[in-house]
């Protein structure tokens, strides 16, 4: 049935679908939820950590939140190893732009460059796509505070509030109800925690299970 068309990324199925890309998105839907909310005076990114253990050394590395440049941060949902490669690339692109133009990279340009990279893995090379979705939060002097989301297909969109990972539909419906465009950063932070508490599997919510970032 569909099995014949999913072993290679570089071919379409007869129904016009790219199965490898869809399977990548399926992998992400099992990952910890990440949500982002654009406020009037800032942006909030909040994420649920999946790997929690008393034995885990805190502070050595982050699973969900990464700083890409002084003015851009991103939250991850999906395969952490894939995310590391892409975040490293994003950091490189941001510094390259700074080297060439002596100005911080506009947020959308960074998102576009990462998405072009992800798209390449869906069209040529015979390699599987990256199993990561990103939420990018950044500020630049052209468009102010911006929130973007990208997925393994290489598509991206600008959002006022969104969520990726497990239970993201539930999170999005709560956001649709509770988000107001005039929301302040403080209210956005509260809203983010409320979202995560509703979408997390476990009953208790404590700081060890969350990663939080705001711009």
């Amino acid at each position, binding site marked *: 049935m569909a099995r014949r068309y999913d072993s290679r990324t570089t071919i379409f199925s007869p129904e016009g679908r790219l199965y490898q890309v869809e399977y990548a998105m399926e992998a992400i839907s099992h990952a910890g939820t990440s949500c982002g909310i654009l406020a009037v005076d800032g942006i909030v990114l909040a994420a649920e950590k999946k790997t929690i253990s008393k034995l885990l050394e805190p502070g050595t590395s982050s699973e969900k939140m990464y700083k890409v440049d002084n003015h851009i941060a991103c939250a991850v949902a999906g395969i952490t190893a894939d995310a590391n490669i892409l975040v490293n690339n994003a950091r490189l692109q941001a510094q390259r732009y700074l*080297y*060439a*133009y*002596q*100005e911080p990279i*506009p947020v*959308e*340009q960074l998102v576009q460059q990462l998405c072009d990279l992800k798209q390449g893995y869906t069209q040529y090379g015979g390699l599987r796509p990256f199993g990561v979705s990103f939420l990018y939060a950044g500020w630049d002097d*052209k468009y102010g505070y911006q929130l973007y989301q990208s997925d393994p297909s290489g598509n991206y969109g600008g959002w006022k509030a969104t969520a990726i990972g497990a239970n993201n539909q539930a999170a999005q419906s709560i956001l649709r109800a509770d988000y107001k465009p005039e929301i302040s950063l403080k209210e956005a932070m509260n809203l983010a925690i409320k979202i995560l508490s509703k979408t997390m599997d476990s009953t208790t919510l404590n700081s060890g299970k969350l990663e939080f970032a705001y711009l």
Partner: protein
Amino acid sequence: MEALLAFNLRDSVLVLVDSTAGRSIVKMKEDEEKVYRIDNNKLLAAVGESGDRVQFCEYIVRNAQLYTLRNNYPLSTKACAHYIRGELAESIRRSPYNVNLILAGVDKEVGPSIYYMDYLGSMQKMNFAVHGYAAHFLLSLLDRHYKADLSLDQGVELLRRCVNELKTRFLIGGKFKVKHVTLDGTIEIPLDMPEAEPTPIPGYHTPVPIKA
């Protein structure tokens, strides 16, 4: 040798560039365009080896316009200057472009700015800048007469002084073109200069009574 001069006015930039194209002792044309329009409020003026000048400037202009097309907004003057400097610095270590440049631009938040670059890839942001042998004559003149917040009329008057100095004292002369860069666009200003008249020196040209 070619002359290139630019200085900041209150909220625009004046650029003076000679328009002679020549080889060795022959002047081939007197209306050569050495200023390239990057976009509505940025000009790139270049002097040096003519093939290098055209090749490099057209490359920069095309890349700057590609940026505008891709992103729906233009490069700022500062970003453009650093980009150009980077290209010069990269190419000098491979196959150098023998061009000296001035980038003149006006941005809404920053105002007028002038970036002086030479063929080695060094760059400096300045209020007034001169390239070529003309610098030996005009930098001192500008040091003396340039002020911040000049109006267009004052600026053109200062330009006339500079051209007069070159016509009087500089061995190699020809025609000049003047460009005015503002936030609304770039325009060429005709500079009708009568034949240079030396400024009369009292005591040399006209007798001055000797006070006892």
